């Protein structure tokens, strides 16, 4: 006797096909997910206790990065400005601005301003700003068009893949020493050979740059 309706044949075939297809799709999807901003926080803008605008201070007033991030050339940590640094100017201008109240309060109470971290690497990754800066990797290379950001956002995915892309082939991203802190720097036409030359002058050896021990220890 007949157990199944004619449609069953198609269904059965589809089921078998699905068994084969599912794993492939699952891996593909999860990979896309891991790369997506949902996981990497790329392009995520975060709220800050004080709505500090890099656009205003960098593009508008033309402050140098190092004015606030003082240790970027000598330490792993680029450095966050102490409240004092803000007050050097803001004890003179915008002294009563409402949005600066937390800053004045911080100085008065002696309590730090709690900024929200924007760029976050895992604890087991040892990133050193000073060396990158010394080797001609500019601020905006990783931090993006800071000069255009009202509130700070994470420009790069900060995945290991992304780090490796540059560690394997830094040349396209290298700048002459004087341009490292230039927020408006853009790669010249001849970056191809210029970068290669810079890599040589900076003594950058790429094979060593992909060693695990460079970033993990």
């Amino acid at each position, binding site marked *: 006797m007949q*157990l*199944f309706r004619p449609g069953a044949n198609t269904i059965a075939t589809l089921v078998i096909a699905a068994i084969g297809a599912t794993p492939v799709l699952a*891996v*593909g999807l999860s990979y896309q997910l891991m790369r997506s901003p949902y996981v990497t926080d790329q392009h995520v803008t975060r709220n800050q206790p004080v709505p500090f605008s890099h656009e205003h201070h960098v593009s508008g007033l033309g402050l140098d990065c190092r004015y606030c991030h003082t240790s970027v050339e000598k330490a792993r940590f680029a450095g966050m400005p102490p409240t004092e640094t803000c007050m050097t100017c803001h004890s003179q201008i915008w002294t009563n601005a409402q949005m600066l109240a937390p800053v004045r309060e911080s100085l008065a109470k002696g309590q730090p301003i709690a900024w929200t971290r924007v760029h976050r690497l895992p604890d087991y990754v040892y990133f050193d700003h000073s060396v990158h800066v010394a080797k001609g990797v500019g601020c905006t290379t990783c931090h993006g068009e800071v000069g255009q950001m009202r509130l700070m956002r994470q420009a790069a*995915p900060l995945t*290991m*893949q992304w780090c490796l892309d540059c560690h394997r082939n830094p040349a396209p991203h290298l700048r002459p020493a004087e341009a490292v802190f230039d927020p408006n720097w853009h790669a010249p036409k001849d970056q191809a050979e210029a970068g290669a030359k810079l890599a040589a002058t900076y003594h950058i050896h790429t094979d060593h740059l992909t060693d695990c021990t460079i970033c993990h220890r």
Partner: protein
Amino acid sequence: MSQVLVPQQPPAHRWISAERADDVAITQAIADPLFTGFGKRWWLALLATMPFVLWLLVSIVWLFYRGIGIWGVNSTIVWGVAIANYVWWIGIGNAGTLISAMLLLTRQKWRASINRFAEAMTLFAVAIAGLMPIIHLGRPIYAYWLAPYPNTMALWPQWRSALVWDFWAIVSYLLFSILFWYVSLIPDLATLRDRAPRRGARLVYGAFALGWRGSAREWSRLRTLHSTMAALGVPLVCSVHSIVGLDFAASLMPGWQESIFPPYFVVGAMYSGFAMVVVLAAAIRWGLGLQAIITSRHFDAMARILLMASIVMFYSYATEWFMGWYGGEHADRAMVSFEFIGTYAPLYWALLTCNCLVPQLLWWPFARRSLPLLILVAIAINIGMWLERILIVWNTLSHGYMPALWRSFHFTFWDWSFLIAPLGLFAFLFLLFMRLIPSVSMFDMRELAHEEAAA
């Protein structure tokens, strides 16, 4: 239990000891119990295995929560029961496919009665074996890092590691075994579909039977496929356990770095596997009343194979000792003497007794024919083979190149858990299999019956 096939002494035929063994009788004997059920005995057995399954689950949860420190492993003896279990189970898992594939290729008719449940045994054993390396990890959640997949770390597995070979060997072997087993199952599923009294069962079996009708084309194609798979299966099985052997042989520790390991692991696998088949065959024969189909001839044949394997095992051990001494490396010689007089010497002697001495009983026909005796021998062999595996791990790691760090293993409750509980899980799965799927291949039996009748 329906006694359709009445066994008689002396047996009517070589491999079937029943006079009236036509298609109907065989079909009834094997298929009908699945519809009528096995009664209380089966339920009791299933109930008995439940606590073990629960025990295993609890152990695994506690292991993941607390970490592998709950085992007796230490800074020097970093491996323990999990690894021994892995090798032991994969060994048993190898036998099923090996048996049915090799016997198929060598045209051994009697395979018909045992290949189905031997292959089922393979599936369950390999599944349990595959569990072991994962729970043995310090950070099991990252086990998937052994697989090559696109990831944002831009990293790949380290292909030179024997563990990666293991990973692929097990995955390939498990999937292969499932296909091999399922393909030969399709016609029987069709029989069940056409014989099942209730519509529900008919639908389920029917779906899995894929609409098999037993046409000449289907049969010839199935045979081609099945025999070719068998031809591929034999090298696969050998390679799988050789790779397990490489886990140790590819190292440079005394007692591990030995070129004999891969072949000797394969033989060991077949050895313990056949021993397990003997036990299961006896169980099924008694449980399903298949005395007519699984005859004492079968046990006799398997006993001979056990005897042969035990001799090869002894030869392998002897080779180990000889090479250890002949190589002249100080550490290797120290290792050999440590095996005999060291911390685990009693276990080592027990191993030699179980694997080399006890099976010699099988030289005597009465021992091969007496089922209880044969079962005892088989169990002894399985114990001996587990001891062999754990001692391979313990001896070398306890007595390496640095005497300052010679230590010994401290067996904990959780080591016992992971040694015993999986046996319960295995029994549980096997009982389910017996209840849902014909434990003996019906179409093979029909064919055999006709050939026997003709002969």
